[in-house]
């Protein structure tokens, strides 16, 4: 009995002694951490995707607290709402940014870009790209091995087994930049989501001469400059035989897409074009309806079964834009 009491007392005394030492040591070596970092961390999405350019959400929270203003800091996953919350916590002002979304700048589906050889090496785009020009006639196009799908933290990319190209899920894509950085051929670009998620872009990055491109891929941008001539806003530039649409200047007037002889200009989420009779029918119609590229949007249109009402509203939606375009034209003149 005596031993038991002695043990309890001695161990308790030891415990108290060590606790006291630890308390003072902890006081002595205390690291001050701004409590606001935790608060900011709370409101961030916690995806740790690195899309903001910092190592994880915690790193971004620290940067937010340290920064004088939130001008350059932006969380692409949380978007404007999240940045508003961060601003509220810190009492700083957040800069509103248009949400961005990834687009694939390659339209070479397996049907328009025939395979010239079979790749059976390691299943990695980076490795294949460092080995050779790829298994098709285009050395700039998608390698179809899906490294972008692997790096996407938000399940927003999927390989389409039929086309052999990755498809961006607009609902899920946060514009975190992971695929842009991963793609060894630099085929992804972050573009402003645009009104009603409508976007126009050139889906080709091939910088060879037009004739050479055409051999490898039917739908390559051949640098013919037709879209440049058509564009009233000087939004399209051609460098290295490859057109690029500047999203800041583009007014989404849709005039460039129909003139493209290879259908390399893709339009997303626009209402279907009115089919003009007679004169247009004689012209070679652009191949592959671009709506194919955005299955989510396409599904919406198809499953929604546009009633007459919707069709009318869509026409209305288009009409003011056309006017705006005309006004713009006058201004530029």
């Amino acid at each position, binding site marked *: 009995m005596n031993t038991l009491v002695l043990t309890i007392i001695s161990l308790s005394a030891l415990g108290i002694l060590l606790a006291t030492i630890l308390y003072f040591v902890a006081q002595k070596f205390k690291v001050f951490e701004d409590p606001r970092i935790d608060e900011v961390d709370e409101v961030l999405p916690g995806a740790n995707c690195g899309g903001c350019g910092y190592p994880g959400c915690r790193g971004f929270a620290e940067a937010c607290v340290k920064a004088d203003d939130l001008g350059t800091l932006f969380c692409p996953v949380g978007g404007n709402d999240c940045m508003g919350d961060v601003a509220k916590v810190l009492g700083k002002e957040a800069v509103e940014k248009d949400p961005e979304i990834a687009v694939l700048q390659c339209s070479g589906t397996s049907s328009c870009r025939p395979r*010239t*050889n079979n790749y*059976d*090496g*390691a*299943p*990695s785009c*980076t*490795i294949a790209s*460092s*080995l*050779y*020009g*790829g*298994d098709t006639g285009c*050395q700039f196009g998608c390698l179809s091995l899906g490294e972008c799908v692997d790096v996407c933290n938000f399940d927003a990319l999927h390989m389409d087994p039929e086309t052999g190209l990755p498809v961006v899920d607009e609902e899920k894509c946060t514009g975190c930049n992971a695929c842009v950085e991963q793609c060894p051929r630099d085929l992804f670009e972050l573009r402003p989501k645009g009104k009603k998620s409508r976007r126009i872009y050139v889906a080709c990055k091939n910088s*060879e001469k037009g004739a*050479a491109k055409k051999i490898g891929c039917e739908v390559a941008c051949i640098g013919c400059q037709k879209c440049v001539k058509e564009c009233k806003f000087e939004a399209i530039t051609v460098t290295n035989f490859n057109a690029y649409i500047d999203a800041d200047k583009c007014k989404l007037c849709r005039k460039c897409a129909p003139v493209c002889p290879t259908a390399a200009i893709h339009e997303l989420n626009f209402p279907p074009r009115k089919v003009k009779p007679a004169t247009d029918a004689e012209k070679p119609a652009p191949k592959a309806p671009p709506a194919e590229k955005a299955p989510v949007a396409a599904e919406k249109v198809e499953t929604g079964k546009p009633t007459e009402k919707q069709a009318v509203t869509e026409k209305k939606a288009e009409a003011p834009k056309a006017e705006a375009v005309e006004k713009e034209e006058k201004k530029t003149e």
Partner: protein
Amino acid sequence: MLKTFPKGGVHPPENKMASGAAIEVLPLPKTVTIPIAQHIGAPSTPAVKRGDLVKVGQILAQSSGFVSANIHSSVSGKVTKVDDVVDSSGYKRKSVIIDVDGDEWMESIDRSTDLIRNISMTSSQIVQRVMECGIVGMGGATFPSHVKLSIPKGKTADVLILNGVECEPYLTSDHRVMLERAEEMLIGVQILMKALEVKKALIGIENNKPDAIEKLTKLTADKPGIEVYALKVQYPQGGEKQLIKALINREVPSGGLPIDVGTVVHNVGTALAVYEAVQKNKPLLERVVTVTGRSVSKPANYLVRLGTPVSQLIEASGGLPEDTGKVINGGPMMGKALNNLDVAVTKGTSGIVMIPQDLSQRREIKNCIRCARCTVVCPMGLEPYLLMTLSEKAMWENVETNDVMDCIECGSCSYTCPSDRPLLDYIRLGKGTVSKLIRSRKQ
């Protein structure tokens, strides 16, 4: 006991079917495509334009730096295009395309077959000539030879090593050079010795070429300083570092060059090219290429003008066998599959190997079973399974600390892996990324 390197190595089936085939001169092609980057280092600058008439031996592209090499025309005719053409890398690279018309050589080139034994040039003149003639390492790595011959300040070489190992299966081009052009090659060795100011040269030959060993031993009997050694048949015996270890038992430090241990290694084909450059003023415009494969009707060794399309070589050997799965540029261990048979023979093309379908396809990748066979066979003492996993997970700093830069890319690990894992593919990826990181850190 035969000399060999102490660590790792494999012994793939040798399949040297073309070893008995004497070197044949391939007829001139109708057009040649000469890439302006055929070597390691900076691509050369084109010196001709469309419509120019060129002679054999005329400069097509000027070297654009110290680690670069001149490119000469291998034929005479008219330049039809200077354009981007798919080369053996599978990417489009700038090339000069020439329509062949006759065979008119530059007057400065001595085309006689007489042996010139007397070496009249001084050391620096030899290096200058090697540079002018665009000589690069003929073993396949195509490192400009004049760089190896210019010894940096503070370093000295005391022995020259000649690489006649040819450890790659199938390839026999060096073997045939040693047999048929032995005397010229040995003068080339003496020229290299003079350029490096060394008194001793060792020729290493794998023991599966007894005729070459015998012939060279006989010929070197009266040449003081040159010795011939038979080496054990073990891949990668011809790796520079392995060969140095086997012959003179010195170990090149990690990240170092052979000159750090007082030696310089040249291929026997390079020695022949140096002889022709120095004694005959003939630039590097042709090379010996082995064309072989299990089902090839006529395995052969051809003396080919650079720029000749690969398809012409295959045609000369009886056409592409029906069961071909891959056509490999180089040997089957380190070579690269071609995706286009119109690519040109370049300075580094040592062989064209046609591998049948059943042997060429990669098998399904299975899980690592931790058998450590890759570690056992790695001649550099690395841990390939670990490097692959780290590369896959993009842990580049760990890849670097596990000495990925020491990998010689011999492929022994991938060859031996029972789970058919693409070890070398990922290690190469790691090596590439780490070297980029190192470069960016230096800046």
